[in-house]
């Protein structure tokens, strides 16, 4: 009974302090909404409207017809016309354009020549994504008014995009964003919550009371579990309202997965708090974990494309497993049990971190 009483006292105190800390309270709601708006609208792998200039040395009807069709693809945004390919190169270098379209003087004749390309695309290859997009233009047929048309061969492979046929980026980003936001807030809030207590001298008082390490830790962590669940709900609602992110699987499964993930992050936060001396250090260590969580978790870049070593690191991070869970449950209607390896990974991480934190946290100052 005393155990629950003391734990409840810690929880009450934590909630009371949290409710008076306007900035932190604002962050709880602000971080998810701001990030989802930013990432939802800003990140787009379906690139359109690349700035393009054209050097049309042919100036034939056929070439002008081609340019009109090029504009209709929406891949390019024609921002200007120049006289020579050299000027295209100059504009590329200045960064004024991403693509230069060079139409040679003998364009009409080349369209019938199977061995020579009719058009040259000058692409800013420093961004591989742009090269990839520009390559789509290769599939554009060059049509003729006169002469025998070269029929494009029938496709051998047909692509059927499951789960996200419209290829909308937010559908993929927002389930991943859940992982990133929860990593940031859960880890940082818990780490800072305990370090702050140490910095202000409160811990010296607390460890001189009958409160045990377990009561203290559980009491400090419980309010943040609730906060994590509220954040998750916020992301789900905003994701549905603004970006029509589907929720195909069971919401109970999603919350169970989130529970495991939050436990993993909180135990990481507790562990950080036993190592960090100041709130600033606690933040730094949190960022140290956050960056790989964004870059190596499959949130932005497909996991399969990463080198073996990076994949190994990614497998350690809870975010990687949670993103697989959210994308699986929300987009592919997967059941939680089908995804059990990810769940086990989260449980192992949480157990290891919690044990390490409990071993390091003693009710002493030295």
């Amino acid at each position, binding site marked *: 009974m005393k155990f629950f009483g*003391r734990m409840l006292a810690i929880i009450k105190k934590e909630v009371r302090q949290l409710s008076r800390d306007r900035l932190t309270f604002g962050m709880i709601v602000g971080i998810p909404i701001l990030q989802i708006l930013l990432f939802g609208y800003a990140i787009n792998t379906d690139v359109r409207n690349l700035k393009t200039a054209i050097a049309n040395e042919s100036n034939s009807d056929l070439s002008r017809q081609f340019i009109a069709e090029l504009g209709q693809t929406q891949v390019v945004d024609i921002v200007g016309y120049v006289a020579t390919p050299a000027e295209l190169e100059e504009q590329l270098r200045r960064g004024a354009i991403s693509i230069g379209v060079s139409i040679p003087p003998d364009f009409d004749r080349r369209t019938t020549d199977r061995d020579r390309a009719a058009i040259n695309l000058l692409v800013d290859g420093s961004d591989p994504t742009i090269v990839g997009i520009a390559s789509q233009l290769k599939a554009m047929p060059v049509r003729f008014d006169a002469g025998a048309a070269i029929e494009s061969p029938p496709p051998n492979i047909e692509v059927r995009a499951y789960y996200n046929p419209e290829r909308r980026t937010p559908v993929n980003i927002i389930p991943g964003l859940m992982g990133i936001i929860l990593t940031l807030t859960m880890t940082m809030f818990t780490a800072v919550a305990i370090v702050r207590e140490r910095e202000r001298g*409160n811990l010296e008082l607390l460890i001189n*009371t009958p409160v045990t390490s377990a009561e203290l830790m559980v009491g400090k962590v419980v309010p943040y579990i609730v906060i994590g669940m509220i954040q998750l709900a916020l992301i789900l609602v905003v994701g549905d309202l603004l970006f029509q992110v589907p929720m195909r699987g069971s919401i109970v499964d999603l919350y169970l997965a989130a529970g495991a993930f939050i436990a993993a992050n909180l135990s990481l936060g507790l562990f950080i708090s036993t190592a960090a001396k100041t709130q600033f250090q606690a933040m730094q260590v949190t960022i140290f974990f956050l960056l790989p969580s964004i870059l190596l978790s499959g949130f932005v870049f497909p996991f399969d494309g990463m080198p073996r070593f990076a994949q190994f690191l990614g497998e350690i991070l809870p975010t990687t497993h949670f993103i697989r869970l959210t994308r699986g449950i929300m987009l592919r209607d997967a059941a939680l049990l089908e995804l059990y390896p990810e769940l086990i990974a989260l449980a192992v991480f949480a157990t290891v971190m919690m044990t390490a934190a409990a071993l390091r946290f003693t009710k002493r100052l030295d």
Partner: protein
Amino acid sequence: MSELAIKARGLSKDFGDLRAVSSLDLDVPRGQIYGFLGPNGSGKSTTIRMLCGLLKPTEGSADVLGVHVPGSTHDLKPRIGYMTQKFSLFGDMTVHENLQFIAEIYSLPVRDRAARIAELLDKYDLVPQAKQLAGTMSGGQKQRLALACAVLHHPELLLLDEPTSAVDPQSRRDFWSNLFRLAEGGTTIMVSTHYMDEAERCHRLAILDEGVKVADGTPQALQADTGMHIVEVTAEDPYAAQAVIDELAEVVSVTQLGVRLRVLIPERIGEPVRLVESALAARQLSADVRKTPASLEDVFVAATMDRPDNAT
């Protein structure tokens, strides 16, 4: 039950190469106010932290209310009250909320809580501040709140680590009258300080210097037994007089207090007044020289001065 609340033997604590506390023996009788006098960095806080289990002694051990330290101090926690040097309550909670929290943490029976908190608010003059955030209060108010929280669960032993270092003289006086009330009620109090006037109020006291206990006893006994003559010199030119007296090989210490100088001379030297008078006369310095009883400050100076002599 033992007559002693604290009995420490050979208590030592190292921080890296630094020996913060060295082979400390302590006997703190029950129901008394036991003072711990020493300058900053003399090991007072470290000792108190070892006694309540916050720090593990490098060597030695103590018996605190019958509980062996170092060891499991979990059963000891509900029986001691501890007041940290720095204000360690929650600045973003009100006075009442802080007391409420402490009552819950110490598992005070729910039906007694409201009455006990009201009693403490009244006793420590915090009724007007009950709804004020603790962080916005004055030093004296914070200190009263800290004491109220430390005694809320009726501890047998109070450990107070420089409780008055951040408060004004009036608050200090009030604080000490509160301590006497507690001691009369049977609470043993161990209090560290670097104020001589506070040390003088203690029933017993130990003087700590660089981690070593250099004196131990009642203030009266310590004052009676400094091993020094205390010679007070009232000079027209105290600065010149001090320079002359400082040169005397027999003199252990000269301290200036306004126009007066307090001169410590070991007891083995006969006729200390004559010694000082003749030295001053030789330089044509007029002064009134007389012997006076030792103050606690003299005890402190004598005790800490003694050590290098003993070492060599």
